[in-house]
């Protein structure tokens, strides 16, 4: 396992229409860290995520993914190193059946035969889906939670060292959300989770990076950042619910708080 899977220095990115998506991004992520990436809509989270596996090449600055710099020759190795789970599972489940979708990644890595079957089965088991039942099912007929799980299985089957999630709990019902959070705590890989779900960020991640208008405005321990109400409000965020209302009964609410 590489000790410094992500190293970004002075990264900038401007969209073709001239909008500055990212400016002066500096970040270093250590192995096995779980990092939350939070920011308002339009802060540049998704653009930054696309740099992690070389879909966007750095326009200026340096991006090192493990031992590889982001250049065309290294893209195959970078994409084996970093697994990116997109926000909408319909964009990610593009093969007709679940089995074909989960084996898509390993096939592109050159895995064949019994090895391939083992990897796909193992990945489906890891996300809690029975391979013999789900394998031949059409991707279109699954529920939202099942689709998300298949999308994650497809990435796990590639055995990456870093997992990057774009809004993993979006559109999930409370139980699926809880199952996903529990599942993410069991994974040993380095994780970068871009999310609006600040309660999940609090629960899962020790470190939080706050993006605002394309710049990193704060990078540090989750508890310190997510309890700083003034700072969060300045950047179009707010204190997570679990911290704002730590009491269960309304009768225990402090008198000074308004309804």
């Amino acid at each position, binding site marked *: 396992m590489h000790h410094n899977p992500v190293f970004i220095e002075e990264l900038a990115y401007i969209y073709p229409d001239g909008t500055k998506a990212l400016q002066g991004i500096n970040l270093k992520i250590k192995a096995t860290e779980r990092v939350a990436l939070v920011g308002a809509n339009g802060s540049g989270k998704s653009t930054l995520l*696309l740099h992690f*596996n070389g*879909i966007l090449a750095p326009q200026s600055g340096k991006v090192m993914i493990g031992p590889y710099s982001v250049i065309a020759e290294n893209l*195959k190795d970078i*994409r*084996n190193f970093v*697994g*990116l789970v*997109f926000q*909408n599972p*319909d*964009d*990610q489940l*593009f*093969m*007709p*059946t679940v089995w*074909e979708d989960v084996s*898509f*990644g390993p*096939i*592109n*890595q050159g895995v*064949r035969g019994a090895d391939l079957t083992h990897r796909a089965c193992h990945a489906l088991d890891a996300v809690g889906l029975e391979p013999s039942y789900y394998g031949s099912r059409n*991707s*279109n007929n699954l529920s939202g939670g099942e689709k998300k799980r298949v999308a994650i299985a*497809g*990435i796990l089957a*590639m055995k990456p060292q870093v997992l990057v999630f774009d809004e993993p709990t979006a559109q999930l019902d409370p139980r699926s959300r809880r199952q996903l959070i529990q599942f993410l705590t069991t994974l040993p890989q380095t994780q970068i989770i871009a999310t609006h779900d600040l309660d999940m960020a609090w629960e899962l991640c020790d470190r939080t990076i706050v993006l605002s208008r394309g710049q990193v405005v704060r990078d540090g321990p989750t508890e310190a950042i997510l309890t700083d109400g003034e700072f969060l409000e300045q950047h179009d965020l707010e204190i997570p619910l679990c911290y704002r209302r730590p009491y269960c009964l309304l009768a225990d609410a402090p008198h000074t708080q308004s309804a």
Partner: protein
Amino acid sequence: MLLHIGAFHLDIDSQGATLWHKLAPHTRVLCVLLMVFAIALTPNGRWWTWLVYSVGVLLLILFSRVTLAVLFQRVAVEFVFIGVVILGALFQNQGDVLWSWGYLRITSEGLTALGSVALKAFLSLMMVNILVLTTSVSHLLQALITLKTPWLLVAIMASMIRYLSVLVDEFTSMRRAALSRNLMSSPGWQRLVVGNMIGSLFIRTYERGDRIYHAMLSRGYTGTPTVLKVPKMTKVDKFIVILTVIFLVFGQSLYFP
């Protein structure tokens, strides 16, 4: 709206154990292609040839044990679409005029042409629908690859099948949103709005295609085909293909001078 495509369970008879089902998918596709070509390339007016070929189609229906109701329903729907196009074959200039009205002339040649084309269309549709009923989509696509269809074309077809229902869902939700805001107030307005919806669907599809491409790149897609194993032709497969060719030539030979 999209008739039988809406059900999206095209291959209801694919779990059989008949001789037809035991053949490899590419053998089935090859036989059907050969039959369709032979049927379509037979010149107009050769009724005996088509009679022989229809016996072949009947035998295939018996062998493959397809659900007749579904088969005829699908062929009927498809024939309605084709019927509109075929009608043009009726108006030919050669032959004895049977009925005329201004520039439109129905001649004996026209009737022969219409009958031939209609029969060709019907037999071909029966063959193709039997194939689709008895073979699952992934087997069909695999068969196309085995028969040396360009891989990119097959990948495009697979994506189309995967995403057609997604697009139908998106269109349905757009339509529902429009209806909730009183779309049905006037027909002209409806046409304008539905036109805009289709345009919007095109743009959404394009952007979705971009996102799907990124997802494919993220999982190592490089544009080169990844075919796992190409099934070989067994003795039975080869025998059936040769039998089909002999049958087709026999049908044509009825009109050899």
